[in-house]
């Protein structure tokens, strides 16, 4: 696949996961898919980073996991945003906007 890997800024993956989950519970595979869809196939999340990130966020208490049945009737683990997770997402979104705006300004000025 010729898509060049777009490297994610440190910490952005967590935010993207939270964002993806803010639309409803998903399993790990689904999270990867949703981020890809939302970024219009620019961002491809590596499994090697996705799962550790999920476990990390889960331990922070921002998401919880429970076993359920997937759309094609397979047993899958679904992650769901918690109240704390929702708040965290808000904080990170604000931070991100500030950061992105700042980076944008820097890049524009020459």
């Amino acid at each position: 696949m010729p898509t060049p890997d777009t490297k994610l800024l440190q910490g952005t993956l967590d935010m993207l996961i939270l964002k993806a989950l803010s639309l409803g519970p998903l399993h790990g595979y689904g999270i990867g898919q949703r981020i890809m869809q939302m970024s219009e196939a620019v961002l491809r999340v590596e499994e090697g980073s996705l799962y550790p990130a999920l476990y990390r966020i889960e331990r922070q208490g921002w998401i919880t996991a429970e076993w359920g049945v997937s759309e094609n009737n397979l047993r899958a683990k679904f992650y769901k945003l918690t109240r704390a997770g929702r708040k965290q997402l808000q904080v990170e979104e604000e931070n991100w906007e500030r950061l992105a705006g700042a980076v944008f300004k820097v890049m524009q000025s020459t």
Partner: protein
Amino acid sequence: MFWLRLIYSRLYGLLRKNRIEQEMDDEMRFHLLMRTRENIERGMRPDEAEREARRRFGNVGYIKDLGRDIKGGGFIEILLRDGLRQSLRMFKHEKQYAAACIVALSLGISASTALFAVVYKVLILPLPYKDAERLVVVWEKNIKQSQNRVNVAPPTFLDWRAQQRAFTDMAAGEPWLATLTEQGEPQEYWGLSSAAALFSLLGVPPLLGRTFTSSEEVSGKDQVVVISYDFWQSRLGGKNEVIGTHLKLDGATYEIIGVMPRNFQFPPFWITRTAFWRPLVFKPGILSNRTYRRPRVFARLKPDYTLSQAQSEMDVIARNIEQRFPDSNSGWGAEVTSFSSLYAEEFRPTLKILFALSVCLLLMACANVANLLLARGTARQKELAVRAALGASRGRLIGLLLTESLLLSLAGAVVGAVLAFWLVKPIVYIIPRANPIVGLDDLGMNMTALMFSIAAAVITGIVFGMAPAIAGSKINLQEILQENGRSGATGARMKKYRMGLVAAETALVMTLLSISALVIHSYWSLIKTDLGFQTRNILTVRLSLNTMDYAQPYKRYTFYRDLFSRIKSLPGAVSASAVSDLPLSGDWFDMSFRLEGELPDPTRKRIADIRIIDGDYFKTMSIPLREGRVFTPQDNNYMRGPIIVNEALAQQIWPNESALGKRLVVETFPNYPVEIVGVVGNIRDRGVQLPPRPAIYQPYPIISPSQMSLMIRTEQNPLLLARAVREQIWKIDRNLALQDIVPLETVAWKSVAQPRFMFLILVSFASVAVALACHGVYSVVTYVLTERRQEMGIRIALGAQRNDILRTVVKSEFIGVILGVFIGTVGSLATRNLLRSLLYQVEPTYPPAFMMSALLVSTIAILGAYFPVRRVMKVDPLSAIHN
């Protein structure tokens, strides 16, 4: 709160290990399945689709590793599972390395654990009495005659007891050697005649029955005994009905009134293995005799008194008595000594030295393992770098390396503890025969000693594993992965650490070697010592004629006449004799004497060993007669008999003339001078290491101790005659106890048991230390060379000579060695006061011992460095540079 949750989740993770593992597996399998389906939908072949899914997913194991780290367990988990698994895998591949570590550690741990078991028993555990630290012995002492720790004359004791306020109570005790008859074979046992107050003083109640009371300390009522647990078990079958039954001791009947508990033993020094305690009754004559210094006085300090307060109070009381009875007590004072300082007194220096040396050995082993870990750390830096590159955190690498060293040291501890089981027994034999230590017979490995070995292992594992682990984990990825070798671990700090290790190891081996050299030298001098008599082919039998049948001296005399003629008629017997103190057994007896016409001078006493002999003693022992004659049977008929002296006495008093015909006044017969009829050679019969002193031999019946040792010269192995001799004795009297029938060679062998075992243990310590040192130096140099392999290759390629290389490599090592030799010398000199008492004919500062050791240490250092360097020299420079 956060911490609580963290701990909870980690413990939870640890316990629910399998569930988490399972869930991660399931989750990832689901992911792969979804991807595969998607790929199929895109038109791939199923097998291709799955392969692609896997490829894309990456390393499942690695992701799970990270997951495990995050999900729970964390550090604990790393140690318990990953580290363990990886370490075990590593040991499997690096058998030699693991074995080297484990052997080194187990040697160190076994030696120190075995010695710790003894140290714990002898130096740490309190004696089995109530508040044992407040128990003391009170002695008489005479500073002018430099007589310390003398037993106390009964009237003096009674005065002390009446006047003192420092002690809750005082009790006297006298040894009692009792022959038990009418209970199978007659046998001798040690007992103690003691005051009734003794038992309350010690605060130990009897197991059965009662102890005696002061109302029984009267002649006529005193035939009651309290027996020891061991005697009760071994001779009386441990039956409860023994109370009220009777024992025949020394021909008299004693009622058993009590049994002491199992761990009770009193006294813990002086006479150990006491089987009986009976009331002490002072005979009327003795109660006014202030020079009859036989009973020993035990006391308990009052809670508000210290030892020195009690001492000063006793000083006042003693001065009082001195003034009232100047004739007998002029110059005599009192001395208070604690029980704990008397217990195992002679053994303490040996024990302390051996324990210190065993710890040296343990530390050496640790230094070696640290070296090995360091060397391995270098060798596997790439492996660690790869782990780090894959995301293993520094903590995780440290954890892994620490687990390795912990595992190694625990394995060492297990092997060491097993070895220690075997080592404890021989160590117990080091204890001097003459002064057995109570409670050491059944000494074995105990829980405390095992705890010690485990603690030693854990501490060494962590302390010595930490530095290599930190160094190994401090990884500069770029440098290492760029293949140019020189790594983050080669900082100046590591260099210092390594030099420190070399210095420490050298210091330890230097200490061990120089002390061993001293002890070995001392032992050689000891066994080469000329005793002055022959120990070969002599059978010895201890005999005591202490029953009522032998109350009159002439009966004992007749007994020996009868016995000697019987023995001489035995085939294989050459000559028969008897002596009051068995040579080299640790028993001896001395008395004061003066020249005829000399006035008694209490400040300047002449002291001589007194030996009572009967039969052909000098012939039996091959002691040369220098002048005059030996005793004849006629001498025995004189009332006071003539005497024979040794050369030491003759030369001390009459250096320029013959001693023959001169007359001495011996304390035994203060009013009758006795004539010297012969002079014999000096012998070392008090102990091999004790130089001969002036000695006086007196013929038997004139002074006739009830205890004698039979000495029989035989043609062949003396034990062949043992049975016949026993039969002959029992033909005369079936009730005689025959305790030890042993060849004199055995007695002599046992008398040097302590120096011999010290020698054997130190020889083995020293060999292990040398082996460890060789190994240690070798691995350090190998380590340095591995680390600087490329540099060496370049140097060789540029034409460097072997010597240059050697110099570069070993320079810092040699600074360490020199430093170590110096520290080690100081270290062993620091023990000189402890050591002096253990050495014979050699000073603890004897320079050759130190020079030899320094030489050996340097040789080890040179050889240990030479071989790895030579190996490197043979390496092709090109490959070294490339690799």
